[in-house]
């Protein structure tokens, strides 16, 4: 009795798997509504057919370990296929996706669910299985089991017809963007595109290197802007206090007459000569929002201090002489009683999504925070992103062009995207952006999204930050040196 229940349950599972996902897909969605699977959908559908086929093996030959093991492997691979396919579209806006939608979810999402149900069902069947269930001889199928087999054959026959029309005989293969299904041969498209040479990668377009200044070219003469005028360094000195790590950005707050220096994890407030440190802390960048390495820093309203990671995650601190050191243990690694953490979150972007940043700037006129992208091994675009301070949400994004009245000219086919902006500061509606590539200072009109001036600064060595103080620009280098140039 128990054994009959086991095989009847399995026969029903095979029937359900054959009829609902695979049968409906081919006879209803395919033949009636013209849906045509893409190459990944085909493999997911075939994987379901294989799980059902292994079910037929078990019905005929009993639950031998090799059948159970193979079924688990195929279903596990199916779950992976479902995640791989769903992942392509998971981050899109609501309602967007690929091809047909069923009950509010696209077909590939259902594949993930169905494979998960397969794995769970196998677990239940295994719980019902005992050693004596393993057969030595092929079983005689009951009418229900035979029905499951016949239905399976009919469903596979339908799929064979659809596969011949949609993908063709070997070596033709399924397509990434298939054509609507038709029984008319004149509408059939057979493709060999998937056999074309293509690079093999694990993470694909997400395999983006972390930013580095190791190999950036520094000579302004070889930069993308032709004949960049030189701006002289008025003063040069070294930061007068010890810091952990290397400087990653610089900012100045005229209200408190303090400089902000960020390092990979450190936040330092210093006097207006950068000779004396007023307070500092080292942020614990893990165990919560992953801040990575700080690439930029800025003073915000009411003395708040912002540090932005290269991955556009940020932490917002407020200086407090009476900060609770015990409560702050979770936020900081050193100097627990000098700041309070106000928030820790992430800036989300669109155009800048696949790029890191090494700068942050605050514009009090618009109450906005800006970041500037740096090019990487996959994406090379100079994108400015503006975030509203009130909700820290993306409010504007744009690329730059060379201003017509600037007198600047790009060399040949060169573009502004070659610059590696490592520091930015804003004054009077203009952003001053320092590029470690070609040691060039760009002056950007934030209203017209244009570069209105560019200057080469001789002697810079890996600049990483910039701050405006009065009529001067203070540029900090990786080695802690400060270069002061006049603001034009």
């Amino acid at each position, binding site marked *: 009795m128990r054994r009959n229940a086991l095989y009847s349950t399995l026969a029903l599972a095979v029937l359900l798997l054959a009829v609902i996902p695979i049968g409906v897909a081919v006879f209803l969605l395919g033949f009636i509504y013209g849906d045509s699977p893409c*190459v*990944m959908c*085909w493999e997911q559908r075939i994987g379901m057919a*294989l799980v059902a086929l292994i079910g037929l093996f078990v019905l005929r*030959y009993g639950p031998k370990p090799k059948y159970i093991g193979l079924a688990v492997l195929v279903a596990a691979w199916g779950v992976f296929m479902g995640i791989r396919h769903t*992942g392509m579209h*998971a981050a899109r806006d609501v309602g967007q996706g690929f091809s047909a939608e069923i009950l509010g979810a696209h077909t590939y999402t259902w594949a993930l669910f169905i494979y998960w149900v397969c794995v769970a069902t196998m677990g239940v069947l295994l719980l019902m299985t005992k050693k004596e269930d393993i057969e030595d001889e*092929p079983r005689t199928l009951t009418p229900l089991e035979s029905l499951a087999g016949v239905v399976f054959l009919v469903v596979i026959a339908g799929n064979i017809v659809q596969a011949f029309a949609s993908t063709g005989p070997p070596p033709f293969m399924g397509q990434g963007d298939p054509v609507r299904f038709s029984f008319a041969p004149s509408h059939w498209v057979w493709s060999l595109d998937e056999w074309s040479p293509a690079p093999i990668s694990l*993470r694909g377009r997400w395999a983006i290197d972390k930013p580095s200044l190791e190999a950036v070219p520094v000579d302004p003469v070889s930069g993308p802007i032709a004949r960049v005028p030189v701006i002289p360094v008025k003063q040069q000195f070294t930061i007068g206090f010890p810091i952990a790590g290397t400087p990653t950005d610089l900012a100045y707050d005229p209200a408190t007459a303090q400089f902000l220096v960020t390092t990979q994890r450190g936040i330092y407030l210093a006097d207006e000569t950068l000779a004396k440190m007023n307070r500092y802390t080292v942020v614990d960048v893990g165990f919560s929002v992953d801040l990575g390495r700080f690439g930029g820093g800025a003073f915000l309203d009411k003395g708040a201090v912002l540090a932005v990671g290269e991955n556009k995650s940020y932490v917002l601190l407020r200086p407090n002489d009476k900060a609770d050191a015990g409560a702050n243990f979770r936020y900081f690694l050193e100097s627990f009683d000098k700041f309070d953490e106000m928030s820790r979150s992430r800036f989300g972007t669109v155009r800048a999504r696949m790029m890191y940043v090494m700068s942050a700037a605050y514009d009090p006129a618009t109450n906005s925070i800006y970041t500037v992208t740096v090019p990487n091994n996959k994406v090379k675009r100079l994108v400015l992103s503006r975030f509203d301070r009130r909700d820290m949400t993306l409010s504007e994004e744009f690329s730059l062009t060379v201003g017509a009245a600037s007198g600047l000219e790009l060399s040949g086919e060169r573009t502004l995207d070659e610059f590696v902006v490592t520091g930015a500061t804003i004054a009077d509606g203009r952003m001053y952006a320092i590029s470690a590539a070609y040691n060039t200072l760009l002056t950007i009109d934030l209203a017209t999204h244009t570069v209105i001036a560019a200057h080469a600064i001789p002697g810079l060595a890996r600049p990483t930050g910039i701050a405006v103080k009065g009529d001067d620009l203070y540029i900090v280098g990786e080695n802690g040196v400060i270069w002061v140039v006049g603001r034009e």
Partner: protein
Amino acid sequence: MEFLNLVVIFATAYLVLRKPEKERTAFRLLVFSVLLMVFLFSMATRTGLLPGVNY
């Protein structure tokens, strides 16, 4: 290639249902189908083998 794989699956099911004494042949065809499916999916996703999401 999907057409080929489905034909093999059909043939395998036919053996299981109508010629159960051909278990060894049927199992070999089954393994072939599984490997072909894995190969074809990997071919289609070789430019990004892992799920294309933020890592």
